[in-house]
C-alpha cells in the first residue's frame, strides 16, 4: 500500500516536469512578424524582388562589389570599392556611366603635378548626391579624402582632405558621407569611437557628433567605483561604440546605425545636440529580431538605414540578411529578405535606399543591387503610414482597414483603425480595435471618453444609491437624536 502511494506520487511529480519545447516554427519561416507577446507570427512580405543590377548590367565593365547606394531624384549611384568606381544609373536601372578617373571641366583627366599621378578614386566607401548644391560627394576611403564632383557633368570641383584643425585620434578615413542643405558634411569613419565627424562646408572641422552609449556591466561598474585612479589606468578602457552608417530624414535630422555589440541602442535619430530622440513606442524596441537561439545565433546587426519621406525606415540586417521596416513611431511593420544563395538572397548586405516607394538593397559578395517593389499589402501599408504621417487620419484609417483585409496579423493596423475611430469619438469601436492591437495607452484614452458618456447617460442611476445612502445616514442621525432628547 505504501509503495502504491509512492508510485502514484512519483508519477504525479513526473507529470509536472516541463515538456521539451521546439522552436522550429520560429526559424524556418522567413516572412514573419512579431506580435505584442514577442511570438513570431506569419506575415505577408511587404516587398518583392522586381529587378536587379549585376555584372551583366554594365556591359564589359566588371562589377567588383556594391558597397553603397544613393538614390537622387533622377539617378542611382552605386559604389564599387573593389574596382574603385562609382557607377551611375538612371532610375530605371539603365547604366549611364562610371566614375573612376576624375576629370576637370574640359573633360581632361586631372594629374597631380607633384607626383605625376592621375587623380583616381581609391576604394571609396560611400556616396552622397546633394540636390540643393548639385554636387556629388564621394567618400574616398583609402585616399583619406572626400571628392566633390559637379552634379551635372561629374567634373572635379574640390577634394576635402583631413582638416588641419581636426582634434582627436580618429583617422580621417571617410566611409560614409552625407551633406545637408547648407553644405555641412557629416562623415562616418568605421571604428571611430569619437562619433560622427562634422565638417563645415569649407572643409574645416566643426565637431564630433552623436552620443553612442556603451552598455554598462554591473560587475565592472562596481570594481571601477572602488578602484583607485592608478588601478583605473591599468584597467581596460570602455570606448564608445562606433557608428557605421548615417542618413537624413525628411526633416534633416540625422539617423545613424551601429552594429557594435556593446552599444545600448542600435538605431539613432539625433537632435542637433547629438542626443538620440528615436521614437520607440512599438511593442518592442527597435532591435530587429527579438530572439536568438543558441550561442552561434547572433542578434541583428544593422549595416544601413533608409528613411523615407513619411518616416518609415528600413533597416538592413547583416546577420540574417533581413530588412526590417519600422514606421516613425517605432512599430515593426514588416520583415522580409533572407540569407542564402538564391536569387534575391543576401550574403553580405551593405546598403539600402528608398527609390520612391521602392527599395534598393545591395550586396557586396554577390556584387548586386536588388530592386524591391511593394507588394499589394506593402503598398497599402505604406500608404497608410504616409496618410497618417501627413495628418490625414480618415484616409489613414481606411488604409489600415484595407491592410487588415490583406493580413490579419498586421497588429499595428488595429491600433491605426482604432485611432481613427477615437478621433471621430466612436469610443466603443475604438476600444474594440485597441484591444486587438494591444495598445493600452490609446485604449485608456478611448475608455475615458466611453466612461464619461456612460456617466452622462446613466447619471440618475449612479446618483440614486448615493442619495439613498446619504438620506439613510441623515435619517438615522435624526432618529438617534430625537430618541435621546
Amino acid at each position, binding site marked *: 500500500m505504501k509503495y502504491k502511494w509512492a508510485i502514484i506520487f512519483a508519477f504525479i*511529480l513526473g507529470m509536472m516536469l516541463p515538456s521539451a519545447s521546439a522552436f522550429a516554427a520560429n526559424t524556418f519561416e522567413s516572412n514573419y512578424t512579431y506580435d505584442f507577446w514577442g511570438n513570431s507570427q506569419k506575415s505577408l512580405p511587404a516587398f518583392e524582388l522586381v529587378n536587379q543590377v549585376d555584372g551583366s548590367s554594365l556591359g564589359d565593365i566588371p562589377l567588383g562589389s556594391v558597397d553603397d547606394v544613393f538614390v537622387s531624384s533622377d539617378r542611382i549611384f552605386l559604389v564599387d570599392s573593389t574596382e574603385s568606381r562609382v557607377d551611375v544609373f538612371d532610375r530605371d536601372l539603365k547604366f549611364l556611366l562610371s566614375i573612376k578617373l576624375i576629370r576637370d571641366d574640359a573633360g581632361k583627366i586631372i594629374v597631380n603635378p607633384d607626383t605625376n599621378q592621375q587623380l583616381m578614386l581609391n576604394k571609396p566607401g560611400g556616396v552622397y548626391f546633394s540636390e540643393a548644391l548639385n554636387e556629388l560627394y564621394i567618400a574616398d576611403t583609402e585616399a583619406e579624402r572626400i571628392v566633390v564632383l559637379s552634379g551635372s557633368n561629374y567634373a572635379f570641383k574640390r577634394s576635402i582632405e583631413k582638416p588641419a584643425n581636426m582634434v582627436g585620434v580618429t583617422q580621417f578615413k571617410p566611409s560614409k558621407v552625407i551633406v545637408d542643405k547648407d553644405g555641412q558634411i557629416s562623415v562616418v569613419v568605421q571604428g571611430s569611437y569619437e562619433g560622427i565627424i562634422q565638417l563645415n562646408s569649407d572643409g574645416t572641422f566643426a565637431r564630433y557628433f552623436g552620443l553612442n552609449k556603451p552598455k554598462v556591466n554591473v560587475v565592472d561598474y562596481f570594481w571601477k567605483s572602488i578602484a583607485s585612479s592608478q588601478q583605473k589606468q591599468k584597467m581596460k578602457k570602455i570606448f564608445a561604440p562606433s557608428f557605421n552608417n548615417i542618413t537624413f530624414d525628411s526633416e534633416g535630422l540625422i539617423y545613424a546605425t551601429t552594429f557594435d555589440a556593446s552599444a545600448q541602442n542600435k538605431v539613432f535619430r539625433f537632435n542637433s545636440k547629438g542626443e538620440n530622440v528615436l521614437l520607440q513606442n512599438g511593442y518592442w524596441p527597435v532591435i530587429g529580431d527579438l530572439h536568438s537561439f543558441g550561442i552561434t545565433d547572433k542578434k541583428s546587426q544593422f549595416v544601413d538605414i533608409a528613411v523615407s519621406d513619411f518616416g518609415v525606415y528600413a533597416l538592413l540586417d547583416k546577420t540574417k540578411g533581413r530588412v526590417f521596416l519600422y514606421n516613425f513611431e517605432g512599430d515593426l511593420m514588416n520583415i522580409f529578405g533572407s540569407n542564402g544563395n538564391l536569387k534575391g538572397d543576401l550574403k553580405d548586405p551593405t546598403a539600402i535606399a528608398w527609390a520612391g516607394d521602392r527599395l534598393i538593397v545591395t550586396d557586396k559578395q554577390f556584387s548586386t543591387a536588388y530592386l524591391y517593389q511593394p507588394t499589394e499589402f506593402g503598398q497599402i501599408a505604406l500608404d497608410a503610414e504616409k496618410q497618417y504621417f501627413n495628418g490625414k487620419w480618415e484616409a489613414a484609417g481606411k488604409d489600415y482597414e484595407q491592410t487588415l483585409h490583406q493580413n490579419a496579423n498586421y497588429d499595428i493596423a488595429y491600433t491605426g483603425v482604432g485611432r481613427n475611430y477615437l478621433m471621430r469619438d466612436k469610443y466603443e469601436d475604438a476600444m474594440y480595435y485597441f484591444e486587438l492591437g494591444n495598445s493600452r495607452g490609446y*485604449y485608456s484614452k478611448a*475608455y475615458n471618453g466611453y466612461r464619461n458618456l456612460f456617466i452622462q447617460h446613466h447619471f440618475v442611476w449612479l446618483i440614486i444609491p448615493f442619495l439613498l445612502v446619504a438620506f439613510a445616514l441623515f435619517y438615522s442621525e435624526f432618529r438617534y437624536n430625537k430618541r435621546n432628547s
Partner: protein
Amino acid sequence: MASMIAESKYMFHVLLHPFDGFYAVKSTRSRNYTLPTIILLICGLTGILGYQYTGFILNYNPLFAMNSIMLFITTLIPFLLFMISNWSVTTLFDGNGTMGDIYVVMTYALVPKLIFDIIGIILSNTIIQEEAALLHAFVVIGTIWFYFLVFCGLCVIHEYSPLTNVVTLIVTFISAIMIVFLAILYFMLVSKVIGFVYSVVIEWMKR
C-alpha cells in the same frame, strides 16, 4: 452550517483584534479547518480571477496562454511553502505553534488581502491609466493588512517577542529558498532518471 457562520463571524473579529483573536484561536476555541481551507481555495481562485478579469488596461497577461490549474497551484505554492518552512524553523526556535496554528493564522490573515484584491479586480475594469496608481495604493492596503496579521498571529501562536519573530521570519525565508532549491534538485534528478529509463527502453526496443 451554523457553526460555520459563527466561525466566520469570529474570523472578522480576529481581523480587527489580531492579538486577542489569535490567542483565543490557539487556546480556547475548538479547532475547525473547514473555514481556513475554504479561504485558501478562494485565494487560489482569486489568482485565476486576477489573471483573467483584471481590466485590459492593467492586464498584461497573455490570456490565450492561460492555464487555470497552473495558476491555482502557483498562487498557493508560496503560502504553502511559507507554512512548511515557518513550521520547520519555529520548531527549532522553540515556537509553540503547530502546523495547524500556522495554517489558521495564514488563512485568516489572507482574508483582507483577498477582499481588497477582488475589489481591485472589479475596479480595475472601470479605471483609466492615470488612475492606476490610486487603485494600486488601494490594493496595497489589503496586502499590508495581510502582512500585519501574519506577523501578529505568528507572534501570538509561537509566543515570540517581535524581535525573535523577525529573526525567525528571516530564517524562514532562507529555509524556503533551500526547500525550493532541493525541490528543483529533486525534479532534475527525477527527470534524469526518467530520461535514462526512457533511453534504455528505446535502446532495448530498437535492438
